[in-house]
Structures are given as C-alpha cells and as structure tokens.
C-alpha cells in the first residue's frame, strides 16, 4: 500500500523564509513528489498551532508518514515526534530535515538555498517511506551519581544531591577537594574570606553519610548509558592507609624533604614529600609524592613510617581500580591558568617581579607563604607601585579569542587588597572593564574611589631596560593610553598578569570517556547554550562550573545546583527512555570474524564463544553506526539508518539528476548475432 505522506515546511519566522522560498517548495512537494498527500508551509511549525496542524492532518487525512522541513533535530525532533505520537502515529515514522542550519543560515543566494532545501525535502520524503515503527525502551535510573571534580561547582552539586538523600561519588584528582577557590584570599565583590565560605562545604562533603569521597583519584573508564553507567575509578596510591591515618600530621612535620609546591601554592611556597595541600584539606589524609620522596629516590629515610602512630604509611601501596555504578554523571572539572610564559614580552619567568594572578592570590593570602604580606620576590621589600595587566591570553587571537570574564573583577579585588595592605600605587591596564554581574559595577566605582588608577590600553611590553633615571631598577610597563592617544611608559615595582582561564589539559580526553564533546577551545559543549546549559548531548551526563566556559563562583555554584536538580529529576522519575535507534546483528549470518569487536566506542559488542558470533548489548548501544559501517559481511543493521533508508535518501536528494527517463540501456544499435 502506498504511503500517505504529510510534508510541512517551516518559515521559522524569517529565519528560514528569509532565504528559502518555503511556500514554493511546499507547493512543489505536493504536486511533484509521489505519495505526498498533504503539503503545507507555516510560520512556526514548532508552535502549538503548528503541531496541532500535523496532528489534525494525521487524523483527518489518515497520514502514514510525516516530513517536517525546519530546524535541527537536536532542537525539535522530540517536539514533532510527540505531535505524531499524540495523533496515534508511531513517532519514528516522522523525519525532521534541517533546512535552517543547512540552508538558510549558511547560504547567501536565495535561489541556491531554495534548491538545496528542495533536495533535502525530496530526500526526506523518499527516506520516510522506508522508516519503520520503533518502540522506545525504558531503563531504571540508578539513584547514585558520579561527580567529577571537587571545586566549588562539583561540591555544590554533591551537597544538593546528598542532602536530597541520594548517594554521590565525588572524584577529585588532587589530594584534597576545594578547587581553585581554596587558593584565594578574598572573593569579589563582597570580599568574603574565601576559606570561610568554602571550607564548611568541604567538610560537609567529607562527612556526609551520602557522599563517598574519592580524592587523588581519576576516571579510568565509563561504559553503559543514562540510568546505568558502569564506571572504573583509578584510586592513585597515596602510600598512606586511608582508614588507619588519623590526620595527625606528624609525618608531614617530620619529613625531611622539602619541595616547591607548584600546585596549591602556585610555586610561591614549599611543601614536604608527604603532604596535605593546605591545613583545611579534606580529607585530612596526606599523600606521598613518589617523585620527591627520598625512599622512592634512593631507598633511604622512612621517617614518616617510623613516626606514624597508627602505622598508616604503606610504601608498597598500589593504585586501585574501583568499580562503581551510577545513573548519572556530573562533570565539574574546572579550569587551568594560562601559561603567561607564552607572551614573552610580558617577561614572566624572566623578570622576577612579574607575577601571575594565581601567584598573587597566594601572596596576599593570610594563610599563604608570606602570611598575606605583599612583598617582592626578595621576600621583604614592599612594592611602592604595582601594575595589573588585564586580558593576558584572553581576547587575543594568538591565544584565546574569548573574554575570561572574571579577571577584570579579580584585578579590582587585587587593587583593593593592595590599597588596603600597602601604600603602593596601583594601576590597572585594561582594554574594556567588564563588570556586568550583580554588584560588580559598584565594586569598580568603589575602587575608583579608593584611588586605583586605570589606564585604558593594551600593554605592549614589560621591560627592565630603563631609558630615564626614574626608570632605573624598575619594571617599565609600555602601553598606549587610548583615552589620550599617547604611548606611555609606567615604571613600577611589581607587575601582575591577569592570565586567562583555560580548559583543563585533559578536558577532551575526559569528555571522550564520558561521550561528550568540546568547543574548539576545549570547553564542554552544553546541549543548548541558552535553554539547556548544564545538560549535554549525551543523556545522563551533565556539566557544571568553569569546565563549560569561564565564569565566576556564583555562576559555578548556580550550575552545580542546576545540574543536581536535573539529576534529582531523573532519579525521581525512576525510569528513562532510551532511543530504540540501535544496532543489531543477524547472528545467523555473522561469520564471527571479530572485526566489530574492538570497534564500539561504548563497548556494546560482545562475542559469544559457543556460537562464535558477535552480539550487540542493546542497553549499551548508542546507535552510532560505527560497527554497521565496519562489518564486512554487512550483517549489522542500524535501526532508523538502514541501507534502504540511506539509499532512498540519496536518490531523493538527487531527484533532479534522476529526472530525465534513463536512456536506453543498450550501448549501441544492436547488430544481429553473427550466424552460428
């Protein structure tokens, strides 16, 4: 029986209609494409009226298939599937073809864009005839959640879920949770003491009955899918028995090996070979840094072992792989600082009194290496003038095109701290002052009042080459003051570089493990930048905080809470639908060649030894199609993307090439066979 197809071409306001002649296409499809029973165009197909139109047509016209030409399936596939369902049609008999992102938004020429849209509609009409009804599958949601990253965003998410009564595994790569916020002295714009507001959350997470804290641990591998992920965590060896250690700190105190602390102290202070990163660390269980420990270097010392009152030191402890099962994953792995050495003209690493912003955070931190005294590298001289350089590695095509968003405010915070603690003059060299959150502009006004000086311009160089006697022994900041249009030289004692926030080095790799993607720069891609900022394209994987893009603490906290709310919603619902778009192997025909066995990015293929054939574990398959393309015997079928559908789609797209009736198959006039 021939299908009865309804075709609906959307204007999307002027988003599509501005470049594509939607009315003409709808009319053309109705008149020229076989089996099209209804063809309409409409201002907004996704509106309730547009959906109603489809539903009414399905019922009245007894449509058996629906094609919608509109925006990306990411956006509205669910909408139109639902409309079809409501009218009693299997939702997988609908095809949404994208004539917005693929046509109107990317083409300039109206007639060409229209032709492309026509080809796509024709392709969809041919394809949809071969689509098959599919039944969605449901899986139970495991109520436990994995949170990766124990910064403020991850902590917030953890506590929200734990307080709601759900179990959370919090995995942090460093020996303590806390993230970057733990390194700060004060936080803008309120100037709250960072530790005072952070550490209560840290210890709450450390003691919560619903939280399993896994610090000094990393994600090894994820399999499964929303509702039932199987996760392998690598617990790195601390060389300390986690349960036996009481956190007394004798080992740390007595350890003879001091090393530069490039992590927590940002290179401004030292730590021991066995260490807790900071006094309020959670958990209070030290780790031995095997690269610096004397025992690992030359089998000497063991002071910590001898002095530990509970015999907790275990030099032969090995990494441990821990298997956990969770229903959802929240990634909150934060950011890493820009390497200021990449801009050699600013002198970092070469000129002693050029600091990175994180170094300066430690320098003015009351618990830092100088107890909060702002002094130069010699450890005693108090600077008389300080230059703060904005946008270092941000808003700079050679490094990062984006604005890091928080550094203007951090610069103002530094200005305030310097003015409060010293008599130094403070200059801010800014391109634009970005203070667009609650109470931020007020903070800027406050600093103007406190006497911080502002020079509008991009610093071209920081040098110690003096040209005038007043510049002798100083760092000279060369900058064009764009407000007066003049090149100026500013001699100062200290320079602070407000480095960009960058994605973590391993962001892409971690994303891959969890099945989510990154932007060009390496920030995780959210499902929708406006309407779904903490979900990702992979169901059950959420992102929160700065791993999704630069942002301040309030925004990171808000995202942590939002991600937790989304997860809690999934848990309460109890079941999730998983797409029936999966691969299946015709086991009768599988030759057991094993080509597909290593192929699946989701480990969804198993080999059955008895029958010597491969099988797809449906619950794990994401329908990516990798194995379908790889199977040399062609015995794997991807539901919703089978050969028939794809070839029909291609032929539909080439409708105009196929137009003129194929010329006779004879290659030349036929001569009678020679006599036999």
């Amino acid at each position, binding site marked *: 029986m021939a299908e009865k197809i309804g075709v609906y071409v959307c204007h999307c306001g002027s988003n599509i209609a501005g470049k594509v002649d939607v009315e003409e296409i709808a009319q053309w499809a109705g008149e020229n494409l076989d089996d099209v029973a209804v063809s309409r165009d409409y201002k907004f197909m996704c509106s309730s009226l547009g959906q109603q139109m489809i539903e009414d047509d399905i019922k009245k016209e007894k449509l058996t298939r629906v094609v919608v030409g509109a925006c990306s399936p990411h956006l509205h596939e669910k909408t139109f599937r639902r409309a079809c369902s409501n009218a009693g049609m299997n939702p997988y008999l609908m095809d949404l073809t994208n004539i917005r992102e693929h046509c109107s938004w990317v083409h300039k020429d109206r007639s060409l864009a229209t032709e492309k849209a026509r080809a796509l509609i024709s392709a969809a009409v041919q394809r949809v005839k071969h689509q098959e009804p599919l039944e969605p599958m449901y899986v139970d949601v495991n109520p436990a959640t994995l949170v990766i990253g124990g910064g403020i965003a991850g902590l917030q998410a953890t506590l929200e879920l734990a307080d709601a009564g759900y179990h959370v595994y919090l995995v942090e790569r460093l020996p303590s949770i806390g993230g970057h916020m733990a390194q700060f002295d004060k936080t803008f714009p309120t100037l709250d003491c960072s530790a005072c507001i952070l550490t209560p959350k840290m210890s709450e997470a450390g003691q919560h009955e619903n939280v399993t804290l896994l610090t000094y641990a990393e994600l090894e591998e994820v399999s499964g899918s929303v509702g039932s992920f199987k996760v392998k965590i690598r617990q790195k060896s601390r060389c300390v028995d986690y349960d036996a250690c009481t956190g007394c700190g004798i080992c740390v105190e007595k350890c003879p090996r001091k090393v530069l602390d490039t992590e927590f102290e940002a290179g401004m202070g030292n730590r021991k070979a066995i260490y807790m990163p900071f006094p309020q660390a959670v958990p209070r269980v030290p780790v031995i840094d095997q690269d610096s420990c004397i025992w690992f270097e030359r089998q000497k010392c063991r002071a910590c072992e001898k002095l530990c009152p509970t015999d907790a030191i275990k030099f032969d402890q090995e990494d441990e792989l821990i298997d956990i099962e969770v229903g959802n994953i929240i990634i909150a792995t934060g950011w890493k600082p820009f390497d200021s050495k990449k801009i050699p003209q600013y002198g970092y690493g070469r000129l002693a009194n050029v600091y990175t912003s994180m170094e300066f955070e430690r320098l003015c931190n009351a618990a830092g290496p100088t107890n909060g005294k702002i002094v130069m590298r010699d450890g005693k001289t108090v600077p008389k003038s300080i230059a703060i350089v904005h946008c270092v590695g941000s808003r700079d095509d050679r490094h990062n095109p984006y604005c890091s968003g928080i550094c203007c405010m951090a610069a103002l915070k530094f200005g305030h701290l310097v003015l409060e603690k010293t008599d130094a003059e403070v200059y801010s060299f800014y391109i634009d002052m970005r203070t667009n959150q609650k109470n931020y502009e007020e903070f800027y006004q406050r600093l103007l009042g406190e006497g911080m000086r502002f020079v509008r311009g991009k610093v071209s160089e920081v040098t110690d080459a003096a040209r005038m006697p007043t510049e002798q022994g100083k760092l000279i900041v060369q900058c064009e003051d764009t407000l007066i249009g003049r090149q100026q030289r500013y001699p100062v004692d200290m320079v602070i570089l407000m480095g960009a926030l960058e994605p973590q080095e391993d962001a892409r790799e971690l994303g891959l493990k969890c099945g989510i993607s990154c932007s060009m720069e390496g920030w995780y891609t959210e499902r929708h930048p406006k309407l779904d900022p903490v979900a990702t394209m992979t169901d059950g994987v959420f992102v929160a905080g700065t791993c999704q893009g630069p942002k301040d603490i309030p925004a990171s906290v808000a995202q942590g809470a939002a991600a937790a709310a989304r997860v809690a919603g999934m848990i309460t619902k109890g079941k999730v639908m998983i797409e029936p778009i999966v691969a299946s192997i015709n086991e009768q025909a599988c030759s057991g060649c094993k080509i597909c066995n*290593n192929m699946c990015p989701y480990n969804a293929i198993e080999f059955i030894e008895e029958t010597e054939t491969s099988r797809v574990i449906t619950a794990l398959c994401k329908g990516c199609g990798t194995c379908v393309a790889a*199977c040399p*015997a062609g015995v794997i079928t991807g539901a919703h993307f089978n050969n028939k559908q794809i070839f029909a789609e291609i032929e539909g797209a080439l409708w105009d090439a196929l137009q003129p009736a194929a010329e006779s198959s004879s*290659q030349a006039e036929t001569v009678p*066979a*020679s006599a036999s």
Partner: protein
Amino acid sequence: MSESAPTSGNGNGKAKGKLAIYWAASCGGCEISILGIDTKILDVAAAFDLVMCPCIADGKVRDIEKMADGEIDVCLFNGGIRTSEQEYMARLLRQKSKCLIAFGSCATEGCIPGLGNLHNRQEIFDNSYTSETHSTENPDNVRPQAVTEVPEGKLHLPIFYDTLKTLDQTVDVDYYLPGCPPESPRIWEAIEVLLSGNLPAKGATIGENTTVCDYCPRTRKNKKIKEFKRTWEVIPDDETCLLEQGLICAGLATRAGCGALCPQVNSPCIGCYGPNEGVEDYGARFLSALASVIDSEDPDEIDEIISKGIPDPIGTFYRFSLAGSLMRRGKRPAPAATSQ
C-alpha cells in the same frame, strides 16, 4: 540413479524440462565447474534437455529464435556483457527462458573481464592490437571492424562496448549464483532447489548469507593491524587468522560457498564469491572493514601502512566486482572516436 535423484525427471512420467547454458564475456571455467558435478550430470540430463551450451554441445541461435517465449525452463547464463552479440543473446535468452540465472562472478558482478572498465575500448584495442606488446605482431595495425566489405559482400563482427555490464545491468535476472567459478557442490544444490520447485523469492542469490570466515578453522583473537604484508613476504602460521597476521584476507567480506578453500591452504581469500547478502558494494564494505582495524591514530603512519601494504587498491577491493559496483567503471575519458 543415485538416491538424491530429482523426482521431476522423466522417470516420473513428467515431460523433460529445457535447459540452456550460455557464455558471454567469461573464461569457460563456469562450464568446467558445471561438469564438475560429476555423475550428477546424469541426473541433470534425466531432468532436462540441453537446448544450448556452446562450450560442450551443438546448438543454433536460430533454433532458439524460433522457440516460443518462455519455452526454456532454466538458463544458466555466465559471463558479462561486453559486445553487441552478447547483449543480443542475453535479451534473446531472457525472452525465451522462464528462469534466467546469472551464473558465476562474471554474470553477477563483472569479474576479471569487468576490470576492463578501468579503460575504454580505444585503450583496450590499443593494448591488444598494437605491435608494441610482445605477443602481438600486427605490422598493418589491423583493428576489428563492425562491418568489413569483402568481394563476397559485407562481414559483420559484434560491436565491442566501452563498458562491460553485468547481466542484470542488461536484462532482468531471476536468481544469482556467485563464485568464480561457482563450486560444483553449490551448483548441484542450486539445481536441487530448482528441481524441488520450492523456489526462493525472485532476485535471491542461491547460496549462503554469511561469509568465508564462518567456514575458516583459523582462530581469531584481536583485529588490530599495524602492517599489511604481501603473500610473498611471510609464511603465515596455519592456526591464526591470516588477516591478524597482516595478510589481506577477503574472507571477511566474501560470501561463503567455497568452504574457505584458500585460507585452509595458507592463502588469503581473494573474494571470488562476491559480496554477502544485502551488501551493495563489495569493495566499499571490505575497505571500510579494513580501515576500521588499522592500528594507528596518526594520519602519516596510516598513509604509510596503506601505501606500503596495499599497492593495488582496485585489484584488492574490486578484483571481481568493479563492473557490478556502485562506480561500475573508471572515470570516462573525454569521448574518443567511436569507429571500431
């Protein structure tokens, strides 16, 4: 008569069926393989009258021309369509046969003669008739002509086409029997199917729907390949999958039917049984499978692995199937003079 003798033979009182076996662009191996069914040929003879088989029996085209449409019960047609005469015979036999079977690789997918589709008529003739090739002596540069005037009148030769077509690119085909040549036991099985009257759906390939690996006794562990080797470079062990030893074995992609003959004697499968059921393009399938198991992420290294290990991609992936593939032929050069 053996016990498995067909019951529809004349022993049953039924009229004998009519069988035609024809060859077009092919090598004759298919006929040899038919004879290879051995004494079963007597069963065939009991069931059918052989109305045509140029290789082994006399038979005239004009007799076929005189037959009623559909008078022949079964025609086993081997060979691709390269000339006008072959096209004529394909059309004629289609018309006169109830059941037309594309028999063997040439008819089903073009096979070795189909590799000529990498070239055109001009190039093929240049190669065959110039005196420059060692085996050719043709000082007058004589070329075959469709029509030649001689004192006695006009002589006709079939026109040689630019492109070799498979049988089903030329006429409607009922069933397919793959293989270069089809293995004798498979031929007998197919004949049994035909005699049973229990016919598969039109367009079916009579045979298996799995691939050679299914019959290959070699053990398979892990397909991750760092280097493709050519057969003369290694003596493979006789336990492990040849592909896993670096030899490009087409058994993965090739329809079962041969019983994995080649891999069992340490020689990689070259794909003579064609694509498996439902596969549109043998070469593309095989290629994407091999591409999936190359063990490298580095584009330069991958290039190296491919260029060193696969010096003849067409011969590796399309040896038997070029004419029947989605591409059908190499890119056509600008139209050349068409005289033969």
